[in-house]
């Protein structure tokens, strides 16, 4: 060869991952960061919120499943606690699907992604559930859950447009509802500022009991030690053919509404039994 290409002079690479320098997977999740998150989450899980599960055996040990839960507290602690709990008790990773707004926040988006968060996009959910057989966690209320005032706590908001049901139908996986008690009281919202939210370009700007007790700085990230109880309901399977582009709207809404009603009843039942917000 009179004019060798530089590329022809290079050694061949050992394998597709030989050059990798980090353990970040295709979703942005890093086992390294998960270990850190576990180290931070463990004392919160065990000693602060003293999480207790009921019916954990209903979460599938293998294969894809869409976990859904009610969402509460200004900065909801329920998502990391559910992820932490299932990962520890079942040894399975949980990918938390969150509003895409998260991704646009510098620092927060990257950290959330490294800790197992994924942008809530139907394609992402489908790939996780159907192609990879993973557990994904979504909050069908969306931001309407955590943004509600303390006076409205434990009253489930609309479950979006039932997208989570359609996602589960398409992926051919069950929906596993989890009723959460305690998260609402860990950071209860007393007041929401609409103008402030607009100004700061955030979905909602809460003023919480934590702010009142601990001040504006500490109150923004220190939770009140409410007792957390998670109850896993019977998994809901859909008798439809997976992989379709679209499912009848009526069927989707009916299934979503049935799940919502069941979760709401479970929440009332759990609240009726609860003797103390702090001790359960």
């Amino acid at each position: 060869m009179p004019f060798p290409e530089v590329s022809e002079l290079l050694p061949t690479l050992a394998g597709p991952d030989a050059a990798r320098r980090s353990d970040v997977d295709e979703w942005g999740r890093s086992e390294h960061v998960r270990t850190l998150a576990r180290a931070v989450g463990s004392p919160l899980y065990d000693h602060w919120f003293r999480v207790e599960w009921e019916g954990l055996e209903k979460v599938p040990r293998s294969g894809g499943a869409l976990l859904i839960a009610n969402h509460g507290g200004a900065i909801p602690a329920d998502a990391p606690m559910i992820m932490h709990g299932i990962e520890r008790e079942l040894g399975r990773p949980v990918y938390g699907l969150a509003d895409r707004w998260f991704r646009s926040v510098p620092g927060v988006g990257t950290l959330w992604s490294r800790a197992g968060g994924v942008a809530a996009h139907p394609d992402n959910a489908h790939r996780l559930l159907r192609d990879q057989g993973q557990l994904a966690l979504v909050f069908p209320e969306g931001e309407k859950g955590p943004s509600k005032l303390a006076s409205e706590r434990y009253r489930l908001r609309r479950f979006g447009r039932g997208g989570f049901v359609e996602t589960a139908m398409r992926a051919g996986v069950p929906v596993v509802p989890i009723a959460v008690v305690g998260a609402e009281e860990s950071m209860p919202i007393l007041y929401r500022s609409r103008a402030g939210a607009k100004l700061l370009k955030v979905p909602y700007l809460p003023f919480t009991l934590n702010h009142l007790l601990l001040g504006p700085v500490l109150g923004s990230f220190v939770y009140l030690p409410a007792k957390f109880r998670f109850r896993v309901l019977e998994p809901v399977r859909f008798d439809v053919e997976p992989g379709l582009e679209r499912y009848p709207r009526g069927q989707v809404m009916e299934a979503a509404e049935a799940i919502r009603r069941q979760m709401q009843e479970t929440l009332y039942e759990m609240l009726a039994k609860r003797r103390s917000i702090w001790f359960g």
Partner: protein
Amino acid sequence: MGKRVLLTGLDTFWGGRVAAALEKDPEIELLLGLGTGPPSVQLERTEYVRADTSYSILSRIVRATKVDTVVHTFLILDSSSGSGRTLHETNVIGTMNLLAAAGASGSSVRHIVVKSSSVVYGSHPADPAWFAEETPRSRPPRSRLERSICEVESYVRDFAEDNPGVKVALFRVANVLGADIDTPLSRNLARKLLPYVAGYDPLVQFVEEDDVVRCFEYAVRAGLDGAYNLAGSGKLPVSEVAAIAGARRLPLSPFLTRRAAAPLVAARLISFPRELEELLKYGRGIDTGKLARAGFLPATSSAGAVERFAQANRLRKAVGGQLPRYRYEADVEAFFKHSPAVVGPDEPAAS
């Protein structure tokens, strides 16, 4: 009868590389390369025509040479390389003229291969982690480059619709890295200073330059039809790209990023076109399953492409000045191609 292939942009990186690769295919009877300047690589049997991309010239060439395959690779994908006008003229008008010439009545063209880019998908927080070929963009294009590539693709789609008898393969190529290619990102990495937007460390994908060439070779040979994503396997965070390439990371403010970067760009410390800024905030992933099912797998992964780039960079730094370089000499080339005196290849028989 063998294939008769017309290549655009013979003077550009991709045109030269693809021509060199296609020359080895014995089924190709004629290789014709268009370019506004002389080819940058040594070519054995490719006929070079110095021609611009005006419609009248293209349609005359297509009619006179009876080519059946057109390989179109010369789209500009670096918005910092020229004015917006050049970008529009080259990408949109060039493609439009080429397709018009290929689709003229009585045209012999039966197969078109177009190199597009994954920038058609954009980069936005609402994006899925992986784009399939039919996944729509999350937001309409805003930058000049994205708009121009989207326009090019719409012309290609229209052409495919208007000419059902012609196979049209469209490749949406991820960011390319490798031993030789020059892109804004490779320039930053070669300078050992990679700008990033503070607070963001998105996942990005790369494809190795030789894989792109092999893919076009395969597309011509196999007669691929339709849109395909092309990228190396896997994704990696931008911070890891800097680590593999041994580049220091330079944080830019997440607010008013362009303004923060402007003095650094002006001082030629970094290259930071708008498409790179968006990529460095939200990244992009394209799903290459369709191309794999069509029979093509890139040899190098995303991380591997970065590693190859880093190796080439180190090698060049050590011995760069000593590597011989090809220079096009019109008279010599004409002699080798057309003189009856030449009876064998001008390479030593041993190689």
